[in-house]
């Protein structure tokens, strides 16, 4: 097999004294869909944000498409153009219409002319099923629609890799399906994807691999059948049982090894 699309080597990340990532090694092959699961505070969002350097790793290396992002001399803006990122809070630009959200980055960053940017925007809006919202402002859209626009905005840049940071966690339950459908379509088209999610059904059906993180390390890494269907580690079993049937969970003592309860993520 050729070189992996995403390669993470011995990644460490600390926020002050709080070590959120404690040595992560991970590879994602071209066209592979990897879901990262784990309890809140396990460092999964931080890992994803390190992959496009929104967080600067304390130690370790990150490669995307063969380019080392952690090299201080790398043109980070050029590398980020190849990496799409979808956020939990959508982060659409509220002062721009849906179409402008899609065209402005193409024109400013990729220097596409107006007509071409508009064409690419229209194509991608159609892919996510929101052509009729082209002239709307983000505030007038539902959360699910906003997230699909955010995905279309990333796709308009023609990324090789897509990162999803809990893309459905801020959505009302009935709106989750539309967003997952778009992600499933992307997976079927062969997009390389790394998805931090709590949607176990999506992970089981769409992911090629599932990675379970806890306490800043990867505890388990394998096919969905292995990790979700037949987990080898007690921590994975424990997490999955609480996630799949939260009503049955017992009250627990807080344990001291739960690092970074807030995910160490300043955005929260």
């Amino acid at each position, binding site marked *: 097999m050729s070189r992996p699309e995403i390669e993470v080597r011995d990644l460490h990340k600390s926020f002050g004294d709080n070590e959120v990532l404690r040595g992560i090694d991970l590879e994602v092959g071209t066209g592979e869909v990897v879901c990262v699961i784990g309890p809140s505070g396990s460092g999964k969002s931080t890992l994803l944000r390190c992959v496009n350097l*929104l967080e600067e790793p304390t130690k370790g290396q990150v490669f995307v498409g063969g380019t080392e992002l952690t090299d201080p001399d790398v043109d980070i803006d050029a590398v980020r*153009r190849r990496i799409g*990122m979808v956020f939990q809070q959508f982060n659409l*630009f509220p*002062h721009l219409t849906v179409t402008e959200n899609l065209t402005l980055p193409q024109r*400013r*960053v990729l220097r596409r002319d107006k007509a071409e940017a508009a064409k690419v925007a229209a194509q991608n809006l159609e892919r996510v099923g929101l052509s009729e919202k082209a002239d709307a402002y983000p505030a007038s859209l539902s959360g699910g629609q906003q997230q699909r626009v955010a995905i279309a*905005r990333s796709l308009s840049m023609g990324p090789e890799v897509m990162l999803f940071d809990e893309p459905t966690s801020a959505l009302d339950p009935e709106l989750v399906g539309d967003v997952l459908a778009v992600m499933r379509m992307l997976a079927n088209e062969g997009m390389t994807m790394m998805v931090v999610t709590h949607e176990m059904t999506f992970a089981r059906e769409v992911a090629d691999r599932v990675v379970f993180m806890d306490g800043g390390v990867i505890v388990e890494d394998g096919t969905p059948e292995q990790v979700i269907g037949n987990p080898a580690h007690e921590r994975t079993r424990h997490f999955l049982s609480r996630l799949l049937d939260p009503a049955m969970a017992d009250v627990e003592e807080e344990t001291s090894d739960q690092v970074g309860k807030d995910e160490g993520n*300043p*955005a929260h």
Partner: protein
Amino acid sequence: MTSTDIHVQPKKKGLTRRQKRRLSRGVQYVVFVAAVIAFAATADWGTLHNQFAQVDLAKQMFPDVITLALKNTVLYTVSGFAFGLVLGMVIALMRLSPVGPYRWLAGIYIEIFRGLPALLIFVFVGVAVPLAFPGTEIPGGTYGKVALALGLVSAAYMAETIRAGIQAVPKGQMEAARSLGFSHARAMVSIVIPQAFRIVIPPLTNELVLLFKDSSLVLFLGVTLEERELTKFGRDLASTTANSTPILVAGLCYLLVTVPLGFVVRRLEAKAQEAVK
């Protein structure tokens, strides 16, 4: 008998709520009417009329009070505001810079120019600058000096307003822009600052109203006849005619601009409030 008991009971506690409200409102009206009567009785209406309401004198002021004085006031204000906005933007960005000395410099500037009376800045620009740099002229003569002085003062306030506006834009906006490949500077210009400006338009309009009034300080720079603005114009005419009517007219001209502007600010604030919801 039981029914009278019910009526009697509240009296023991003193006034009812309704009675208290009536009493409080009654007292306020009495105080207001007393104040108006006292003012009307003590004012010398004849002199007041002579001093402030000479219609002939007021008529004489037109059209110069508009075409010259008000025009100059607006010109001074707008040029000062424009210069202050540019400088304020630069200082706000310096204040947010990762480079320490920029932050300190911007902080010192803001503290100094917010702490000094505007009048002192005018004297400084009018007297000290020409002395300190002999031979150099501030371009634009008086207009340039006023723009400089007003701009220096307003930049300090506007810098703080703009900085707060930039910081009020959610962090996710910058992250989204960076993840799309925008450089930090380009993301600032294309994404963050346009949103920050929408946040700071109401307070900046307020600043414009303050500047409009501060432009009267130009009279301490020494101006030619053609450069006079409302206050200087009204005062000069008041002293030559020994009558205060010109001052009243000049004051009304200020209100002609500031009242509608204040209305616009309130509308913008209400709109911004709605956008947050």
